[in-house]
């Protein structure tokens, strides 16, 4: 089973990388970009026996830092 874990910064947490990317887009002449937030995509290939609870625990224990980040688990059809 393929699983995508989307990790993003929580609302209200300043994102210096997103801000720099935003600035670079403007520097390239792209207008109309209101905000940029950078996150991380982690793709897992797991056995079908892996439970939703186990995936959730993987996110909370390692893949995301719950102090500053949120995560969203997306199961991808094979």
């Amino acid at each position, binding site marked *: 089973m393929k699983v995508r874990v989307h990790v993003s910064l929580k609302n209200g947490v300043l994102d210096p*990388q997103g801000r720099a990317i935003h600035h670079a887009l403007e520097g390239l002449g792209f207008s109309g970009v209101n905000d940029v937030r950078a996150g991380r995509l982690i793709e897992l290939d797991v056995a079908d026996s892996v439970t939703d609870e186990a995936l959730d625990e993987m996110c909370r224990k*390692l893949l995301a830092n719950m102090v*500053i980040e949120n995560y969203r688990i997306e199961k991808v059809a094979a």
Partner: protein
Amino acid sequence: MPFNAAVITFPGSNCDRDMAVAIEEICGGTVHRVWHGDAGLPEGLDFIALPGGFSYGDYLRSGAMAARSPVMQAVVEAANRGVAVLGVCNGFQVLTEAGLLPGALMRNAGIRFVCRDVKLKVENANSLFTSGYLPGQTITIPVAHHDGNYFADDVTLDRLEGEGRVAFRYLEPVNGSQRDIAGVLNDKGNVLGMMPHPERMIEPAHGGSDGRKLFESVLRGLNVLA
């Protein structure tokens, strides 16, 4: 009893030798060098230091992989037993990732790696690590980091301030840290994490010796307790 310390080396640590030399010179005794894959720590440790560097290449998040390495289980247990633990720079990041200290260290607000001497204010001069300083004293200690931007929610920050757990504060803009926090203590006061490098400021040849007092404080504090 001679001072008994350990410095943990992760793959990618690069300040472990400096840390070991500082402890040896100032505290004397024995400094064990412990590898991250070791399942346990030497017996009877007084002091554990997590050094600066780029453990595991900063993969995932700075300090994230090191915080889950085998030896860190033993470090967490030792910290919970009351053993003094100092994390500097990457060591601070590891301590937050391991849950021994609150908050997180994010990318510097200015994006750039910051490597220079900075002025700090000693906010708490009563802790195990800072008793050799004067309250409010200004000291100069170098920083060298990319991810030193301390973040915690307002409730946590208020609690840290109220409980005297902000050990050091930057006196100049450095990395965008909330409330200019440069170093924090755990609730029992036996764990300190800080981004500046006291081990790089222990003799005049380093350009100053303001970092010495931190190690002297630990030595004196532990002798008093012993």
